């Protein structure tokens, strides 16, 4: 039983990593929006890079989610 409890606590701690990914996404989208408002004509061209940054950042958050899921379900 204690192992299960430790697993649940560990999963909770692992999910903290997703908060970091959330901060990173906020930075990315905020900076994109700031840049897009300064130069709207260039905004569409940078959308691909926005998604790339989003994917890379979110991937790290997904890793921590993965650790949490592994702790909970295996």
């Amino acid at each position, binding site marked *: 039983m204690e192992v299960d409890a430790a697993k649940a606590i560990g999963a909770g701690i692992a999910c903290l990593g997703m908060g970091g990914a959330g901060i990173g996404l906020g930075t990315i989208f905020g900076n994109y929006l700031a840049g897009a408002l300064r130069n709207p*004509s*260039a*905004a*569409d*061209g*940078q*959308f*691909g*890079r926005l*998604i790339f940054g*989003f*994917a890379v950042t*979110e*991937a790290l958050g*997904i890793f921590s*989610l*993965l650790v949490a*899921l*592994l702790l909970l*379900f*295996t």
Partner: protein
Amino acid sequence: MLPATLKRTDTSSRPGEGVAVAGEKKPGKAGRTGPGSGDPQHAADDELERRRQRLEASLAARGRGEGDTGNAARSSGAVGYGQALRLSSEFIAGVAVGAGLGWFIDRLAGTSPWGLIVFLLLGFAAGVLNVMRSAGKIADAGARVPTPDRRED
């Protein structure tokens, strides 16, 4: 890129105005110069007519612009709100389906934990694909390649 877009919006807005002028203004002028020119009632009517034409022209240009790009990031307010809800749920659904599928495969084949790992990552990729697809950006990915290069010059 910039001159091209400028030229395109210019030509796209011009036919709308041209149609409005040809279709609405000429009959109005022909009918109204006869009865009374200094009438304030008619002046108000003319004003209203002119505003209506401007609205029609701008509506036409706007509709054409939206149809052109299919770009939802440019629209604001309610549509943007709906778009945001759509994108996030699209992404989360991809990840959730990937994780669920991986867990299910693990249970069937007993390959724990590899199915969960692989399918969660695949689900993440599918989520990003969903987001890009619903943002309407995946079709013109090739067409946008020259733009960043020019901007870096």
